[in-house]
């Protein structure tokens, strides 16, 4: 275990995340460090203790529009609540990143409703990567028709915002035989090229649907060839890796790389290995809002860490 102050700071962030339990993450840029900030605090103008800066971006994940079973018969409603929550923030982030499973069954009408709801976000840019639920139609035609433009229909792409280099990766279209997600050779070659020559002081944010480290292999909660991607990223001073897929927060810090999974806005899932598989978890309806939410992220300069804050719907 590292005692590097950067790691300690990040672990504090992780504890904060655990304390809050809910639905989204806001990311803030303050002199080069990504800092996640609690959404409830951001919305209430108090600001999280010791964390200042402009919210950089918001992570929303696993909206599963189209799901209608008992774990949450109204996923459109909980997404609307999440959006209202974000819109109530006094200082809004410029970007929203959706880390996949926008829809439940990849149906055109589900995508249409999701787009309609997400357009209610008072945030300028929406960036996406697909989840496996978004590409069950085979080639992901419905997803790419709507969200393929940014990546020239490859799904993976990068862009820069406020000095931060963002990289969206696709790990749901090329499964390994053991059930883990995979990036594949073409995408890894693209990633290597994308990072080549970039200054190690550039803060990097990587987003993909499935976890980029193996959380629980029997349920496929990991990406088989993520290590190769990490080998290209390790030289950077601040790397934040954001995923969804598992509908709960799990965080890990490894050197300068912080891994973080977001909550769903639709329904929770069991903790690793708890039950027959990673399906919807039915909880008492009064507990559901405390298990849904978003993540907000700030980037701070001193110390050079990303700060992530998870917020539930209650």
């Amino acid at each position, binding site marked *: 275990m590292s005692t590097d102050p950067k790691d300690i700071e990040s672990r504090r962030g992780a504890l904060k995340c655990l304390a809050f339990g809910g639905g989204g993450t806001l990311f803030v840029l303050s002199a080069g460090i990504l800092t996640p900030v609690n959404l409830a605090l951001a919305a209430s103008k108090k600001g999280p203790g010791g964390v200042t800066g402009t919210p950089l971006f918001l992570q929303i994940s696993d909206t599963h529009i189209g799901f209608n*079973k*008992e*774990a949450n018969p109204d996923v459109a409603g909980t997404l609307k609540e999440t959006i209202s929550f974000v819109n109530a923030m006094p200082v809004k982030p410029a970007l929203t990143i959706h880390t996949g499973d926008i829809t439940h*069954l990849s149906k055109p009408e589900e995508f249409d409703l999701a787009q309609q709801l997400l357009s209610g976000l008072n945030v300028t840019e929406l960036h996406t990567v697909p989840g496996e639920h978004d590409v069950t139609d085979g080639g992901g035609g419905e997803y790419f028709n709507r969200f393929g433009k940014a990546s020239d229909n490859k799904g993976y792409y990068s862009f820069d915002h406020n000095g931060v280099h963002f990289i969206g990766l696709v790990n749901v279209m090329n499964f*390994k035989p053991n*059930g883990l997600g995979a990036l594949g050779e073409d995408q890894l070659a693209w990633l290597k090229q994308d990072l080549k020559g970039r200054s190690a002081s550039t803060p990097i944010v990587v987003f993909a649907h499935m976890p980029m480290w193996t959380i629980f292999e029997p*349920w*496929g909660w990991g990406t088989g060839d993520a290590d190769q991607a990490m080998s290209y990223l390790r030289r950077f001073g601040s790397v934040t890796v954001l995923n969804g897929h598992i509908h709960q927060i799990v965080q890990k810090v490894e050197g300068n790389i912080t891994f973080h999974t977001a909550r769903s806005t639709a329904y929770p899932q069991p903790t690793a290995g708890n039950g027959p*598989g990673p399906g919807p978890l039915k909880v008492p309806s009064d507990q559901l809002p405390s298990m849904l939410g978003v993540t907000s992220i700030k980037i701070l300069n001193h110390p050079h860490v990303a700060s992530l804050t998870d917020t539930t719907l209650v």
Partner: protein
Amino acid sequence: MFVRSFGRNLVNAFAVIMLLAAVSVTSVSGALAQDANTIVMKNFDFSPMMLTVKAGTTVSWKNLDGEPHTVVSPDGVFRSHALDQGDVFTFKFDKPGTFKYICSIHPKMKAAIIVE
């Protein structure tokens, strides 16, 4: 009432089975044929994981889980859309062989059809 309480896909599947029953003189009842050649998806497994059928048989898959599953042959021989709880996918196997398949959403779910 029977039709209304099931998904559209099942209705379609039922229609396919009835059609098969109609053209096949030796067929027993549609319901029996369906049971014998139906695979269920339950608790993140295909059951049975191995099914042997004669060439020309139509096999049905029914998802009983609250989580959607798919039926996808990596060789591209057959591929379902995402099946919600209660939805059914059918495929007719014309040629002998071993046809492995997975759920593309949960690729740990693996099974095979052997066609004689």
